[in-house]
C-alpha cells in the first residue's frame, strides 16, 4: 500500500463511517460500533502510513488526473509526507480514543449515534486538511470541521447554553474564515491553480503573481482565519464556551483537530509564510498576547474544564508562535511536533477530566476536589498529562516546547522579526503554565474526600432527555477499552518524545542551556502555585475576590466586547437595511404603482366632463401640441 493510498483511505474511512453510522442511528449500539471500528481501522492505516511514509522531498505520483474550472486548475490531490503521517497518526489515535470513550461516556444518550457520526466526519475533515495538497480541499476540511464543531458543541441542544456556545463557536470562526477564504482565493487565483505545490511555487518564485505587499496581505488574511479557528486573540472567546459540549467533543476539538488545524495549514504554506513578514508579525503578536493572556485566565478559572480550554488556547498559541518565528532553515516542524505532543497530552487530560466529572458530577473545581481518590489510573493520567502540559523535561510536552523555545530564540537571534516578543512571551507562559498545572493537580489530588453523591453543579451538562454525564449505572468506573485507551495515551505522554528518533519530524536538537532555563522557570511557577495553595479551597488560590473570579470566568469580558462591537452593530444595521428595503427600495415599486394610480386619477379628472365640447377642447390641445412639435422639430 502506497503512502498516497493510505492518505486517501484515511480520509474516506471515517467519512464513510460517518454516513454508515448516521444511517444506522436507530440502532445505537451497532452504529457506534461501526464508527469505533472505523476509527480503529484508521488508526491501523495511520500506523501503516507511518511505516510507508515517503522520505522527505520525494515527489509522489498523483493517483488521479487534475480538473480545471475555466482558467483555474483544480487538482484536488492528497499528499503524504513524514510529518503528515505523524500528525495523521496522532489524529487517528485521538479519534479512536475519543470514540471509545464516547461509547462509555454517552452510553445512555439518545443521540449517541449522531454524535459518533459527527466525530467520524470531524476526523475525516481533519484528515483531509492534514493530507490535502490542494487549498480547496483544505478549505473543505476546514469548513466541515467548523460545522462539525457546531454540531458537537451543540450536541446537548436542549440546553440553551449549549445552543448559544455552538452558535458562537461557529460564528466567530466563520467571521475569521472570511479572511481565510479570501486569502486562499487570492493565493489560488494568483497562481491559477488550487494545487498547493503550484501555489507555493508561484508565490515564492521571482515572478510572483502579485507584489510582496499583496502576498503579505493574503497571508495575513490566511493567518486571520487560522487565528479564528485556533481561538487566538482576538477570536479566543469561543473556545472556553465550547466546553458546553460533551467532554469527548472537547477532547477531539482541542487535541487533534479544529484548533490545531491552523498549524497544519500554515505549515503547508510555510514557504510562502516565511516571505510574508507582515503575516509573521501579525501571527507573532497575536500568539504572544494569546499565550500569556490565556495562561493568566487558566490560572483564574473556577471550572477545571475551562481551565483546560484556556490552556489549549495558550498551547496552540505556542505552536503557532513557532511558525511565526521559525526560519526557512528550521522549517515548520517544531510547530508540528508541538501539535503532535499537545494532541496526546491534551486528549489524555480531557478524557481524564471527563471521567473525573462523572465521578464528581461536575467540572467545577469545587466539586472536583479530591475526585482522584480511589481512581489511581485517573490520578496518574491526570498527573502525567499536567506534567506534559507544564513542559516538564523529557515528557512529550516538554520536549516539544523546548524545540519551540529554541526555534523562537534562533528566529529572534538570526532574523529579528517577532521572535523577541514571542520569546519573552514564551518564557512568561512557561512560568504561568507550570503554575496552573500545579493548581489543577492540587485540586484533583486534594486530600478532602468528595461526597459520594454530589449534587448537580450549575455547570454540569444538563440532562439530554434525562440522560447526561450523570447517568446512572456507570458507578464512575469506565469500561475496559476506555481504560486501555487512557493507558495508551498516558504511556505515549511519557515516551512520545521518542518519535524524534524516527525522523518523521525534521527538528534540530534542543539546547541543554535552554532546557535548564525553562526547567528553572517551571520550578518557579510550580513552586509559586504550591506556596500559594493556602489551606482553604484551592480554587481560590490566585483569584480571591468574586469580582476577579467573574472577570476570569468571563475571559476578561470578551463576550461582552463581541456583542458590543460586532453583534449589536450588525443587528442594528440589519434593522436599518430591513427598514430601507421595506420603505425605500420597495417604496419605488409602490411609488410606481401609486403614481400610476395618481396618473389615472388625474387623467380621470381631465376626462370628467365627457362631453362633446370637452372633446373639442382636447382637440385644441392636440393641435397645439402637434403644431408645437412641428415648429420645434423643424429645422
Amino acid at each position: 500500500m502506497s503512502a498516497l493510498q493510505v492518505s486517501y483511505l484515511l480520509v474516506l474511512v471515517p467519512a464513510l463511517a460517518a454516513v454508515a453510522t448516521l444511517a444506522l442511528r436507530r440502532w445505537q449500539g451497532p452504529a457506534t460500533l461501526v464508527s469505533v471500528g472505523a476509527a480503529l481501522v484508521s488508526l491501523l492505516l495511520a500506523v501503516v502510513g507511518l511505516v510507508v511514509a515517503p522520505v522527505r522531498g520525494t515527489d509522489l505520483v498523483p493517483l488521479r488526473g487534475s480538473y480545471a474550472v475555466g482558467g483555474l486548475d483544480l487538482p484536488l490531490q492528497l499528499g503524504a509526507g513524514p510529518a503528515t503521517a505523524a500528525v495523521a497518526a496522532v489524529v487517528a489515535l485521538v479519534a479512536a480514543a475519543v470514540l471509545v470513550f464516547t461509547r462509555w461516556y454517552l452510553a445512555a444518550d439518545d443521540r449517541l449515534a449522531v454524535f459518533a457520526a459527527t466525530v467520524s466526519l470531524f476526523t475525516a475533515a481533519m484528515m483531509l486538511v492534514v493530507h490535502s495538497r490542494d487549498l480547496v480541499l483544505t478549505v473543505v476540511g476546514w469548513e466541515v470541521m467548523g460545522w462539525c464543531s457546531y454540531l458537537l458543541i451543540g450536541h446537548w441542544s436542549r440546553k440553551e447554553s449549549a445552543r448559544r456556545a455552538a452558535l458562537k463557536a461557529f460564528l466567530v470562526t466563520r467571521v475569521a474564515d472570511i479572511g481565510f477564504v479570501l486569502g486562499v482565493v487570492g493565493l489560488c487565483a494568483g497562481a491559477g491553480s488550487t494545487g498547493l505545490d503550484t501555489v507555493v511555487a508561484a508565490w515564492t518564485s521571482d515572478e510572483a503573481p502579485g507584489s510582496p505587499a499583496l502576498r503579505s496581505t493574503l497571508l495575513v488574511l490566511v493567518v486571520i482565519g487560522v487565528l479564528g479557528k485556533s481561538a487566538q486573540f482576538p477570536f479566543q472567546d469561543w473556545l472556553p464556551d465550547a466546553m458546553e459540549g460533551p467532554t469527548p467533543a472537547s477532547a477531539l476539538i482541542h487535541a487533534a483537530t479544529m484548533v490545531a488545524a491552523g498549524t497544519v495549514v500554515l505549515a503547508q504554506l510555510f514557504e510562502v509564510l516565511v516571505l510574508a513578514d507582515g503575516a509573521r508579525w501579525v501571527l507573532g503578536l497575536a500568539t504572544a498576547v494569546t499565550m500569556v493572556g490565556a495562561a493568566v485566565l487558566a490560572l483564574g478559572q473556577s471550572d477545571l474544564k475551562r481551565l483546560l480550554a484556556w490552556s489549549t488556547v495558550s498551547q496552540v498559541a505556542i505552536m503557532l508562535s513557532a511558525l511565526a518565528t521559525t526560519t526557512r532553515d528550521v522549517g515548520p516542524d517544531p510547530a508540528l511536533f508541538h501539535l503532535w505532543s499537545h494532541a496526546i497530552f491534551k486528549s489524555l487530560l480531557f478524557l481524564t477530566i471527563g471521567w473525573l466529572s462523572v465521578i464528581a458530577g461536575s467540572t467545577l473545581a469545587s466539586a472536583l476536589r479530591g475526585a482522584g481518590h480511589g481512581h489511581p489510573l485517573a490520578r496518574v493520567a491526570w498527573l502525567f498529562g499536567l506534567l506534559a502540559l507544564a513542559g516538564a523535561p523529557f515528557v512529550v510536552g516538554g520536549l516539544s516546547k523546548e524545540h519551540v523555545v529554541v526555534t523562537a530564540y534562533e528566529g529572534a537571534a538570526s532574523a529579528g522579526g517577532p521572535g523577541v516578543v514571542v520569546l519573552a512571551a514564551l518564557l512568561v507562559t512557561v512560568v504561568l503554565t507550570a503554575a496552573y498545572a500545579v493548581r489543577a493537580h492540587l485540586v484533583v489530588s486534594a486530600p478532602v474526600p468528595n461526597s459520594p453523591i454530589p449534587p448537580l453543579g450549575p455547570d454540569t451538562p444538563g440532562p439530554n432527555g434525562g440522560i447526561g454525564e450523570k447517568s446512572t449505572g456507570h458507578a464512575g468506573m469506565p469500561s475496559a477499552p476506555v481504560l486501555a485507551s487512557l493507558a495508551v495515551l498516558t504511556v505515549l505522554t511519557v515516551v512520545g518524545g521518542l518519535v524524534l528518533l524516527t525522523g518523521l519530524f525534521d527538528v534540530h536538537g534542543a539546547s541543554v542551556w535552554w532546557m535548564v532555563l525553562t526547567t528553572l522557570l517551571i520550578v518557579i511557577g510550580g513552586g509559586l502555585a504550591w506556596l500559594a495553595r493556602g489551606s482553604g479551597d484551592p480554587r481560590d488560590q490566585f483569584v480571591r475576590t468574586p469580582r476577579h473570579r467573574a472577570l476570569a470566568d468571563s475571559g476578561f469580558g470578551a463576550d461582552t466586547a463581541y456583542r458590543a462591537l460586532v453583534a449589536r452593530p450588525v443587528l442594528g444595521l440589519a434593522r436599518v437595511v430591513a427598514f430601507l428595503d421595506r420603505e425605500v427600495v420597495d417604496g419605488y415599486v409602490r411609488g410606481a404603482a401609486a403614481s400610476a394610480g395618481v396618473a389615472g386619477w388625474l387623467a380621470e379628472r381631465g376626462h370628467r366632463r365627457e362631453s362633446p365640447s370637452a372633446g373639442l377642447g382636447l382637440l385644441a390641445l392636440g393641435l397645439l401640441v402637434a403644431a408645437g412639435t412641428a415648429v420645434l422639430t423643424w429645422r
Partner: protein
Amino acid sequence: MIHLLGPYVVAALLVGLGVMGVLARRNAVLVLVGVELILSGSLVLLVAAGATAPSRWEASSVLPLFVITIAAAEVVVALAVILTAFRHRGSIDMDEAL
C-alpha cells in the same frame, strides 16, 4: 408677378374663424358651421394653389368638387343626428348632461 396673397389670407382667416367657432361654440349647429368655415378655407387654399402653379390632373379644381359633395352628405347626416338629439333632449347644447 402678382402675388396671390389675398386668397391665402382669406383662406387662413376662414380656417382660423372655423377653428375658433368649433372650439368656442357648444351649439351643435354652430359647430357644424365652424366646420363648414374650415372647409371653405381649405377650398380657397386649393383653388388659389391651382392658380399659382399647375397641379397634376387639375387636382386643385377637382378636389373641391369632391369635398363639396362629401360635405353635403355630411351635413345631411349631421342634421339628422342633431334632430334626433334634439328630439331626445330638447336642446342641441352639447354639454347638457344626459
